[in-house]
């Protein structure tokens, strides 16, 4: 049948779009209808079902920080997904406690997905609460002062702008905090 598309442009257009739309619709429109966790915010109060906690919406300040994260292109070097790999779970952990894996329901309020494709710097999906604001200020001013060998660029225009620094740190402290996974609740502010 496809032989006829050789000389019939209208048939060609129909076949090319038809084949495209089968896969296109089944892999984009159908999945969120089938897997409800894509759109339902995380909430769990039963410790037997894994980590407890609740995903809350961003505050205005956190949202401003989120926009700075987008503006500076942080996601080109930092992923935000603790994958189902033993090494990811260990690396996203803190002080010997492994972190839970990332699930779709933790990202429902993310107006711009920040999962990332390249891990030039460490993953940030569980960075929330690991370092305090003073650490972040010094780190943004010159990352190599705190982490020798780091190749992260300096961000003096953020470190020296109290408003932007507060906003960005507020956003970073939300990362991975929907799930309560630190046993002593020892999150930095």
């Amino acid at each position, binding site marked *: 049948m496809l032989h006829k598309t050789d000389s019939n442009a209208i048939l060609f257009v129909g076949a090319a779009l038809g084949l495209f739309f089968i896969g296109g619709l089944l*892999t984009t429109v159908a999945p969120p209808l089938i897997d409800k966790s894509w759109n339902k915010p995380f909430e769990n109060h039963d410790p037997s079902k894994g980590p407890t906690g609740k995903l809350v919406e961003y505050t205005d300040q956190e949202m401003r920080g989120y926009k700075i994260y987008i503006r500076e292109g942080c996601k080109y070097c930092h992923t935000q997904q603790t994958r189902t790999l033993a090494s990811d779970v260990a690396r996203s952990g803190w002080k010997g406690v492994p972190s839970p894996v990332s699930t779709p329901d933790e990202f429902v309020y993310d107006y711009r997905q920040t999962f990332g494709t390249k891990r030039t710097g460490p993953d940030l999906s569980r960075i929330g609460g690991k370092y305090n604001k003073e650490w972040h200020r010094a780190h943004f001013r010159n990352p190599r002062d705190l982490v020798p060998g780091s190749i992260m660029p300096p961000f003096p225009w953020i470190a020296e702008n109290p408003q932007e620094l507060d906003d960005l740190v507020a956003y970073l402290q939300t990362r991975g905090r929907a799930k309560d996974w630190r046993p002593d609740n020892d999150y930095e502010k």
Partner: protein
Amino acid sequence: MATNAMGESMAAPAAAAPPEIHSDTTVKWFVLGAVGYFFVVGIIALIIAAKFVWPSFLGTIPYFTYGRMRPLHVNGMLFGWLLAADIGLAYYIVPRLCGVKLWSEKLGVATSILWNIIIVSAIFSLLGGYQKGLEYADLPTPVAVLVVIAWVMFGINIFATIARRKYNQMYVSTWYLMGTILWTAFVYLTGNFATLLPGVTGVNQANLTWMYTHNAVGLIFTPAGLAIAYYFIPRASNTPLYSHKLSMIGFWSLAFVYVWTGAHHMLHGPISQWLQTIAIVFSVMLLIPVWAVVYNFIATMKGQWHQLNDNVSLKFLMSGTIFYLLTCFQGPMHSLRSVNAIVSKTDWIPGHAHMAVLGTFSFITMAGVYYVIPRVFNTTLHSESIANWSFWLFMIGGLGMFTSLWLGGFWQGWQWNNPSIPFIDTVVALKPVWMVRFLSGILIFSGIVLFLYNILSTAIAGGQAKAELARS
């Protein structure tokens, strides 16, 4: 069967209409602009490669920070150079395959002007930090709207030309270009606009983004590049295409298989396992269209390989074919969960991506540009020797970059999988690799400079000859 413009049997070399009916103004505008952006964005590419070696280089100026220059590098190379050059070559190929003039040169030139407005706005907005925040769809929405308008203008011109074609049967390059125009329209709308619909967030948005990102390569640059290769391999070698039937198998399997694979960008990540499995199955099936195409190209060259000695266009075309085979073998292999656990998110991935966009599609496109520019300016190439030098600079620089990133990335992934190695140690370990990548980048950039110089000199010489002809 014997009625299309490539003759399918080139023994009767296409009752081709005399070449002077084509004014090719649009071709010149698009291709010369693209070659210029190749150079400009090449500078950006070198700067970001340098930043991996000297992280504070240009680092205290917000406009030149890595996170703003990287999207400019990606979008600039994809849309400023590669897609613009592909569009320009389409304006050359389609009228010739249809045996008629381009439907409207005026519309074509207007499209080119709009395209330049898009690229220049993209440069300023991305460096200013005004970006949408979605990889590959980084351009701010107003600029993305202009892209859609330009695409519709391009599509109308090409389809109207095809509708008035003299040869009833369409050659395979025409199918691929029609496919490119149709699929790109929907792929671009999905990545740039469907992702912004209310309620589309998180994983849902990521899934739409990967559908776009993956198909930006698979259903925009692949069919456009293959259209060019299908046209110029027979033309540059003066040999008929090996098999029409094989080209059909390649085309229709690509049309069906490619769009299913987006979720392989999030393997092991927070996206439904069954969707990951579907993406893996279809990713492996991609071997079918790829091997059908590559076999067709290689078989076309049977008995003709000696032509590679002194034909720079063919050198680019056949190296591009080999890189296509390799990059599209890597792709399906990366989608296997076990391999993915090692290479995903590492420096292996840019090695793979550069073999696709630079090694495969830019090589094929440069072959087309080297073939077309002397012909549309009615002259000969400024220097075959400089063209040959540019080929070897691209080849050696490209191989240096690809292989260093693969080896480094594989090593990096291996270290990541041992959590007792601190993350910063895996960064420090890659520093020699990034130095090799920077030095390879210098070679590639030198290739770009020679390419730009050769093409511009050819165009200027052609323009001067025409002016003298007009005076006498």
